[in-house]
C-alpha cells in the first residue's frame, strides 16, 4: 500500500465512495417506501441492490489492500 501514489489512492477512495453512495440512496428509498406504505417490492429490490453494493464495496477494499490480487 506504501507504493500507491496519492492520485491512485484518491481514485480508489472515489471508487469506494460510489457503492456507498448507492447504499445510502437505496436506504433513503426504502425509508420513503415504508413511510408512505407503498408496495414492498420496490423496497425489496432496493435491499437487493444494497446487498450487492456492500459486496462491491468489500471487493474494492480488498483490492486496496492487495492490489496484485
Amino acid at each position, binding site marked *: 500500500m506504501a507504493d500507491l501514489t496519492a492520485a491512485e489512492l*484518491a481514485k480508489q477512495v*472515489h471508487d469506494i*465512495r*460510489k457503492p*456507498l*453512495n*448507492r*447504499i*445510502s*440512496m*437505496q436506504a*433513503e*428509498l426504502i*425509508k*420513503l417506501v415504508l413511510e*408512505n406504505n407503498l408496495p414492498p417490492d*420496490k423496497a425489496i429490490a*432496493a435491499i437487493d*441492490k444494497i446487498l450487492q*453494493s456492500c459486496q462491491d464495496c468489500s471487493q474494492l477494499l480488498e483490492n486496496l489492500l492487495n492490489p496484485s490480487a
Partner: protein
Amino acid sequence: MLSILLVDDDREFTDVASHIIDFLGHTVSVAGNLAEANEWLEHNHFDHILLDFMLPDGSGIHLMDRVQHLFPVPKVTFITGHPSVKSVIAELCGPKVDYLIKPIQRECLERLFNPVKQKAKKSSATKTNLHFNCLIGESEPMQALYTMIERVAASSANVMLMGESGVGKELVASAIHYASQASGDLVATNCGGLSKELISSELFGHEKGAFTGAVAQKIGVFERAKGGTLFLDEVTEMPLDMQPHLLRVLETKKLVRVGGTKEIAVDCRVVSATNRTLQNIAEQHILREDIYFRLAVFPIEIPPLRERAADIPLLAKAFLNQLNEDSGTSYQLTSTQLQRLASFDWPGNVRELRHTIHRAHIMSDPAKKEVELPASFASPFSIAQKEHTGLAAGKTIDEVEKELIYLTLKKVSGNKAMAADMLGVSVKTLYNRLSAYGGLGEFS
C-alpha cells in the same frame, strides 16, 4: 413542482435518485454524460441541475459555461465524492451554485428543492454573514484570520492577539472559544484595570481570611475558565513583578489560591491580547521573554480596519441594522454614504466606525430614510494620527512642502528660527516660502 436535470454516470445512482426525486413531487430527466446533458438543455428548460463533478466525457464544470448563458439561469448543485472539491466549487459558487457531497441524504435533496426554506436561508445570509458567530468581514485579511482561528482552535495552544485599539481583539477571542467547541466558559479579565494587590486574587482566587477584607473564598478566573478559554486583555499592562506568578501557573498548569495551600489543576486555553507591537514589547521590557513565549505560542495579528476597507460597508450596514432593530427604526445608508465611510482610514478601527454609525443613528431625522452622517469623521483621537498621514500619491511636492512647514511651525508654536533649524533651511528661506504661500497666516 420543479423540473430537474440529473447528470451522473452512475446508472444505479441516477435510477434510485430519480425515484426519490419523483417521490418528492418533481419531474426528473437523466443524463449519463456531458453530451446527453447538452442535448437535454438544447430543447428543455430546467429549474435545477444536479451535476456530477466527474463525467466520462469531461468535468461537470464544462457544462457551467453553457448553463450561465441560459435564461433564466437554472440553479446548479454539484454532486461530488471528494470533500476536497469543495474549495474549487466554492469559488464557482455564485448564488445559484452549491454542492452536495456523496453519500447524499434525502434531507439534503429535500432542502435543495424546497424553495421556501431556500429563501429563508438566503435572507439570513444577506443580513450579515457572521463568522464564528461573531466576526463580520469577507476581505482577504479576514479570510486569512479565519483560517488561523480555525487552525488554532483545533489545538490547545495559547494565543496572543495583537492589533491596534478597536480592531476587535475580544471578539476574536470569543471566535477562538466558539471554534474550539470547548466545554467550559469564556472568562475575560482586564489586566490593565487591576491594582497590583488585587491581581493575584483576581487571577488565582483567594481563601477566606487570606488578607484584610477577604471575608469569603473567591474563585479566580483561571479556575472559572476550567475547560474553556481565559481571555487576558491588556496583558502587557500587568505589573512586571506579577509576571513570575503567572509564568509559574502557565508552566506547571497548577495554581494555589492566595492564602491557600492546596494545588489546583489549571485546564484552560489562555488567549491574551495587547495593542502594543511586538517590537515595543521586546524593546521596552513590558513582558518578560519567558512569559511572552508561554502566552504567544500562536500569535495572531488582527488587521486594522484601513487594511480591510472592503469590509467597511458590510460592518456599517450590520451596525446600522442592529441599531434599527434595537430602536425599531429603518434607516438606510446610501451608496454615497457607504463610499464616504469606506474612504476614511478609521484610526480608531471598528470601534470608531461603530461609534460613528451610532452617533449618526441618533442624529438622524426621523422624517428621512437615510441616516445623517457627520460632515467630518475625525474624532479627537484620530487628529494626532491624521497629521502624520499627510503623504499620499497624487500630491505635488509644493503641497507636501507647505504642509511640512506648517506642521513644523505648529509643533514649535510658531518659532521660526527653531522651525527653520528643524527643516534644515535658513530662516530667510522659511520666510520666503511662507510669503509665497500668502503670508504667515496664524504664525505671523
